């Protein structure tokens, strides 16, 4: 299977390259892989995720996603690449002034789909995450678990090639966490979406085969 993500001698750093977080990491992630990345706090899990959606430029090495090297990507190309990704955040990052339905169809809005298509898809996606009746509500009227389901629906809106999730269940109770894992497992299984999850802890109940990477001492290692 083809690689969706390919990192070679990747070094990530802050403070204009002075503070290295990840050093000389090399790994490949294939289409349809479900990947967990774990590691202690401050090890660089979220930093790696930031680099994967192009918010942090690699200091050195290569980070290739869908054939695009993020070390030398032009803003326009990065913008286009991001439209093929679904990103889920621990703090949801929903737009509080927008309704739940509008939040969910953000990727479709960016892609220029008509209002009719957006409305139909909003209904379908919210039904999928069991929040159909919340379409006209605003994010702050929802519980944390419900907001995260909206976040997942938004990530799935455009059938992305890659889903990146940063501690998606970090703030949720067990019930909400299980719902989120189910949704992501379904996406991976049914749509062959590559899912990469940064988390403290791999869920105990998880039905899919998965790959596990650990970040330790600035290195990224696969656990077999």
């Amino acid at each position: 299977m083809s690689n969706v993500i390919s990192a070679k001698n990747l070094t990530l750093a802050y403070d204009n390259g002075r503070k290295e977080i990840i050093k000389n990491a090399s790994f490949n992630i294939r289409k349809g892989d479900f990947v967990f990345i774990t590691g202690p706090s401050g090890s660089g899990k979220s930093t790696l995720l930031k680099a994967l959606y192009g918010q942090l430029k690699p200091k050195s090495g290569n980070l290739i996603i869908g054939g695009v090297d993020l070390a030398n990507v032009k803003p326009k190309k990065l913008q286009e690449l991001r439209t093929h990704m679904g990103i889920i955040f621990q703090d949801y990052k929903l737009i509080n002034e927008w309704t739940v339905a509008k939040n969910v169809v953000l990727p479709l809005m960016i892609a220029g789909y008509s209002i009719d298509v957006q409305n139909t898809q909003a209904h379908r996606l919210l039904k999928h995450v069991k929040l159909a009746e919340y379409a006209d509500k605003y994010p702050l009227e929802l519980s944390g678990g419900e907001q995260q389901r909206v976040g997942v629906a938004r990530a799935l809106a455009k059938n992305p090639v890659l889903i990146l999730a940063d501690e998606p269940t970090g703030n949720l109770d067990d019930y909400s966490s299980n719902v989120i894992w189910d949704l992501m497992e379904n996406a991976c299984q049914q749509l062959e979406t590559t899912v990469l999850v940064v988390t403290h802890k791999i869920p105990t109940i998880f039905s899919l085969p998965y790959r596990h990477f650990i970040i330790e001492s600035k290195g990224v290692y696969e656990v077999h």
Partner: protein
Amino acid sequence: MKFIKNHLMFILPLMAILLGIEFYLVFDRTTDSYEKGLKEGYTMLVVTRKPITLEQLRAHNDHIASMKAIKRESIVSEAAQGISKESKAEILKSLPYFYNVGLDSYLGTRELEHIKEDLEKDPVVKRVETFGSSYSSAYRLFSFIKFLLKVFIGFMGIVSLFLIIKQMEIWKYAHQERMRVMEIFGAPLMLRSGVLFKVAIFDAFIATMLTSGVFLYVKFVWAAQSGIDLMVEKQNELFKMTDMAILLGVALLLVIIAVYMVVFSAKGEEE
């Protein structure tokens, strides 16, 4: 309340600029005839020993545009009242020829002196009187007032523009989270800053309407009731419908520049 405050913080500086522009337009229109009178009404007096033609004078200096002979008979009849016909004829015979000479543009004192020197080189020309100091001081005073007005409006415009940009930055911070989320999902710059453009364009319309309203009030209510002749006479010049188009054009241009400045500075921070 916060919503109104946010918009007023943008509308008021924009209105200050528009009021300045409209005030200048009105000032320019109402004083136009006065300025023309100062510029075009000016003539210098040329006294010659023999009759002279415009071409002869022009040969000495290109700035000479027109010439009008002053009737010698009227000078004599004014100056020699109660004198016999023969004496008048004698005076007329010895009297030189007088001409009012007009110029093609407003010239400074030095240029006027230069024309005077050119003309006095001609042996036919007896004397040239430029009235340079009185002409120049009236025109210069007017030009100075106009210049001060421009400086004041310009200064007010710069200060107001800074206030507009400051307010736009506050809006940017207010919408920053939304813009960042949109950016992460691949929204182009124009889409994620669309909200700033919408609000700014809406406020540009409001500021234009309010400014136009102020001047329409001045035109139709205040000027009519003022009892000031000049105001009543020039009432039509106080506000024209084309002014509204000018104000709207300027307002839109300013807000678009301000939004671009803020949006592109934000882009620089992110990358």
